[in-house]
């Protein structure tokens, strides 16, 4: 009686450590950066993304729209902890998943009854960065919502599919050749640990969607329209793939 119990316990332990080893092999883009950029991300007074977080904090408290309500009138900041680490999620009463920016936009038009925030606009990214920053340091934890499963599968399929004039898939670079150099740049494993994040190349804060568009354009594929479900499907897949990794927003990347 004792023996199976001991076995079960040691097996569970081995499983846990195997999972940990497997998890430890994944690398955030942060780990591929030089020390100077890592320091820039880690230091809130040097991280350019924090300027957007601060702007987002102001917008969070500012009433808007016909409802004349601020985000803060409905949401406690404590409730925002962990939200970004689990998005995308199904929209309430909706049949489609939305990402964090989509959630903010929906709140803006439906609840605040305000003008929609344009995709990739400074206001939208700032609000998203402020909410995302509340999850900094938490493990990425996508919800176990069965309604997300078909979208996750769609995202996985897109990830594996060759596209564009260069006939490449996400997986060719970010699974099969991650860590190698594309020109001078280390190919990251494409874990969305830091979004919205500040890219020096953009000289701006940007969303994961913007990053996905960049890659599509790079392989000379037709970028999806900005409201396409394909992006959210990819985001769901990538967040699931990064499950358990530490959420870093606002990240800094080259």
């Amino acid at each position, binding site marked *: 009686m004792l023996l199976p119990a001991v076995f079960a316990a040691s097996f569970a332990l081995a499983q846990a450590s195997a999972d940990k080893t497997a998890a430890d092999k994944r690398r955030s883009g942060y780990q591929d950066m030089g020390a100077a950029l890592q320091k820039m991300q880690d230091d809130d007074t040097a991280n350019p993304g924090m300027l957007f977080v601060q702007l987002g904090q102001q917008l969070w408290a500012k009433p808007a729209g016909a409802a004349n309500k601020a985000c803060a009138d409905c949401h406690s900041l404590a409730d925002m902890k962990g939200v970004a680490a689990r998005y995308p999620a199904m929209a309430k009463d909706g049949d489609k998943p939305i990402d964090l920016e989509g959630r903010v936009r929906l709140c803006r038009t439906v609840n605040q009854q305000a003008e929609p925030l344009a995709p990739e606009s400074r206001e939208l990214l700032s609000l998203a960065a402020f909410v995302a920053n509340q999850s900094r340091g938490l493990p990425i934890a996508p919800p176990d919502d069965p309604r997300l499963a078909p979208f996750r599968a769609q995202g996985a399929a897109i990830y594996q*599919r*060759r*596209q*564009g*004039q*260069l*006939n*490449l898939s996400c997986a*060719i*670079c970010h699974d*099969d*050749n991650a860590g*190698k*150099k*594309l*020109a*001078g*740049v280390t*190919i990251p494993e494409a874990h969305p640990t830091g979004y919205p994040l500040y890219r020096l190349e953009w000289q701006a804060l940007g969303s994961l969607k913007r990053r996905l568009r960049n890659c*599509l*354009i790079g392989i*000379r*594929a*037709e*970028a999806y329209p900005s409201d396409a479900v394909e992006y959210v499907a990819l985001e769901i897949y990538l967040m699931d793939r990064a499950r358990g990794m530490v959420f870093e927003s606002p990240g800094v990347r080259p």
Partner: protein
Amino acid sequence: MRAGLLVAALIASIAGTAWAQGASPYTVVGDAISQPLADKPGDPARGRAIVANRSVGLCLLCHSGPIPEERFQGNLAPSLAGAGGRWSVAQLRLRIVDGARLNPDTIMPPYYRTTGLQRVAKPFEGKTILTAEQIEDVVAYLATLKE
């Protein structure tokens, strides 16, 4: 005369279905294309410039090569150094034109194919990555890389 026109029309219609997309027909024998794709012989100097150009040849994104002035070179694929010693001109040609004919899993983009591709961006739709002349230039350059 009439027969000639007919042949021309036939070729045009074939071209219209299969090769109107920016690639002319070519013949693969074994693992090679022995006939040049263009009338003019390739120019190694132009080929070198194409290989070095990150938005034209794109070669150095994945390959390294003996082009020291280009500092940031890739390592996803074998070095181009010695390519002309490893492969004949005809073999090089097919590997650039459509490497997937030799290895369906290759990550090498098909430089002279417009079919079987998905979701190609509008500006590139129906266009090959390099023209026939450019491929001949690149082949001529690679052939000089004997070691």
